[in-house]
C-alpha cells in the first residue's frame, strides 16, 4: 500500500511533468500492466514449447509437450493413476510433508532452545551437530526405507531430518541473540527459569524461527518426495518414478505441476501463519494497518 504514496509523490513532484495524473489511477494502470505482462510471458513460454514440439524443433518424447501434460493431468484426475486416485497421491505426499515438517520444527525448536540456553551442552555437542549437518541428508533415504519400510514412516523420517537442522540452527541463533536487557527485566519482574524460556526467549527467538519455516517447508517436501523416489507404494514421488520407468515424460511434468501448485498453496499458508504469529513486528503491523 505504501507504493501508492510513493507513486503519487513522484507524479506530484516530478519537475516539468505535464500530465499530472491522480496517484491511485496511475498505480492501478501499472499494476494491470504487470498482470498482463505476466500472463503474456506464460503464454509465450508454454505456447512456444507447444509450437516447438508440434513443428518438431523440440522432441516431445524427451521434453514432453504442454498439451500432453494437461491430458495426463486430466486422465489422472478422471480415471485415477496406476497407484490409485490422484487426490490420494497428493494427500499421501502432503501427509508425509506436514507430519515431517511439524515434528522437525518442534524438535528443532526444543533442541535449539535447550542448547542455546546451555552453553556447556552446546560446546560438547557442537562438532557432532556440525558433522551431522554436513552430511547431504537425502542419502539417509535408503536407510530409512530399509529400516522403516515402504510406508509413510520412512518419508516422514526423511522430512524430519531435512527440516530439523534448518529450524535448529535458527532457533539456536535466535536464543543466543536475545536482548540481555529483556532477560534481566523479566528476571527482576519475577520470571522463573522456565518462565524466562516461555515468556522471553521463545517469543524473542520466534522471528528467527519463523524465518526458517518457509525454507524448511520446501525441504520437508523434498524429503517426502525423495523418500518416495527411493521406494514407495503411494505418493507423487512414486508417480514420477512410475512415469520415468515407462518413459512417460509428460507424466513426470504433470506430477511436477501438481507439486508446484501444492507447494505454492502451502507456502501461502505458512506466510499467513507467520503474519499471525508476528503481528508485533514493526513492518508486519504497518502493512496491515495502513
Amino acid at each position: 500500500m505504501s507504493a501508492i504514496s510513493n507513486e503519487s509523490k513522484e507524479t506530484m513532484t516530478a519537475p516539468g511533468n505535464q500530465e499530472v495524473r491522480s496517484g491511485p489511477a496511475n498505480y492501478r494502470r501499472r499494476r494491470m500492466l504487470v498482470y498482463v505482462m505476466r500472463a503474456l510471458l506464460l503464454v509465450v513460454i508454454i505456447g512456444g514449447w507447444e509450437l516447438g514440439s508440434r513443428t518438431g524443433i523440440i522432441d516431445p518424447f524427451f521434453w514432453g509437450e504442454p498439451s500432453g501434460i494437461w491430458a495426463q493431468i486430466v486422465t489422472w484426475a478422471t480415471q485415477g493413476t496406476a497407484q490409485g486416485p490422484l487426490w490420494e497421491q497428493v494427500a499421501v505426499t502432503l501427509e508425509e510433508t506436514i507430519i515431517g515438517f511439524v515434528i522437525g520444527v518442534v524438535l528443532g525448536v526444543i533442541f535449539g532452545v535447550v542448547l542455546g540456553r546451555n552453553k556447556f551442552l552446546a560446546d560438547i555437542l557442537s562438532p557432532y551437530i556440525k558433522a551431522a549437518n554436513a552430511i547431504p541428508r537425502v542419502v539417509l533415504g535408503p536407510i530409512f526405507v530399509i529400516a522403516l519400510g515402504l510406508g509413510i514412516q520412512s518419508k516422514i523420517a526423511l522430512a524430519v531430518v531435512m527440516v530439523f537442522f534448518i529450524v535448529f540452527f535458527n532457533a539456536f541463533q535466535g536464543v543466543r541473540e536475545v536482548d540481555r536487557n529483556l532477560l534481566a527485566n523479566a528476571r527482576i519482574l519475577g520470571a522463573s527459569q522456565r518462565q524466562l524460556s516461555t515468556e522471553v526467549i521463545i517469543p524473542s527467538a520466534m522471528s528467527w524461527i519463523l524465518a526458517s519455516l518457509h525454507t524448511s517447508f520446501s525441504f520437508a517436501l523434498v524429503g517426502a518426495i525423495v523418500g518416495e523416489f527411493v521406494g514407495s507404494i503411494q505418493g507423487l514421488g512414486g508417480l514420477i518414478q512410475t512415469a520415468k520407468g515407462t518413459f512417460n515424460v509428460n507424466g513426470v511434468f504433470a506430477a511436477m505441476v501438481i507439486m508446484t501448485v501444492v507447494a505454492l498453496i502451502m507456502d501461502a499458508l505458512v506466510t499467513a501463519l507467520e503474519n499471525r504469529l508476528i503481528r508485533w513486528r514493526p513492518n508486519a503491523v504497518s502493512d496491515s494497518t495502513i
Partner: protein
Amino acid sequence: MVIISQPMKNSSTMTHDVSNQVTSAIELRNVTKRFLTPTGQIYTALRDLTLSVAPGEFCAVVGPTGCGKSTTLGLISGLERPSVGEALVMGKPVQGIDPRIGYVFQADAVFPWKNVLRNVATGPLLRGQPKSEAYARARDWITRVGLAGFEDRYPHQLSGGMRKRVALAQTFINEPQILLMDEPFSALDVQTRTLMEDELLNLWSSTSASVVFVTHDLEEAISLADRVCVLTAGPATVKGIYTIDLPRPRNVAEIRFEPRFVQLYHEIWEDLRNEVMISYERNKQRV
C-alpha cells in the same frame, strides 16, 4: 508546565529519623566487583565501596561515564554478586533476585511482542496473580502513567517517552520497596526528560520506596534526590555524599533556578569535575 500537586513528601524527615536506627533499606559494605573481560583480563568495576540508603530515601549516584555506577545496581538487585564485601537489602544479604525490588533499565526493556497492557501486567502474571486481577491493576497503572487509551499498542508504535512510561508502570505495579533506576531517561530529549522526572517524583511520592537513581547528569541528580553520592573514576568508590535540602514537592523544570540549587551544584561539581577529567584523560589514552 504543569505544577504537580503532590502531598508533602516527608522523606527528608524520614531520612533523619531513620539515620539514627541501625537498619537501612540498602547497604553496600566495602564491596569490590571484578569482571573477567572477554580477553581474559580482570577488570575492577568497584573498589571498596560503602553506601547505605535509608527506607523511603531517594539517593542519586553520579559519576563519570563508565565508572561502574550501573554495577552498584546490579549488586543490589541480585543480578550480580560482589567479589568482596556484602550487599544487604532490608538488613539481609542479597541472595538471588529479591521480589521487593524494581529496576528501570537504561535501554528499552519492555517486551516488543507484548502490547502495553500485557507489558504492564507482566510482573503480576509472572508472580502468579490471576489474569483478571493482573489486567485490572495494569489498566489502573496505565492510567496513572498517562497512557490510557494506548493499552493495545505495541512498543514500536510508541514514542521513547511513552515506552519509558510503560517501563515505569511495569515496575511500579509490583509495588517495589526498593527502586533501582539506571539512567532511565538518558535516551530521551530534554523536554520529555523533565516531564518524566516530574512523573517519577509524582509516582514515587505515593509509595514509600527507597530509590537508587544512577545518572551521569548532576542536574538531574540534584533535582530528584534527597542525597547525592559522587563516585570516583573507575574502579569506583565513594568520593563524597551530599544531602540535598531542597524542599518537596519539587518542580523539576524550575528547581534548577533556585539559588540553593545552584549553590549545591557548584559544591558537588567541584568534586565531580576532577573525576570526569581523570576518566576523560584515560579514555583519550585508550583510543
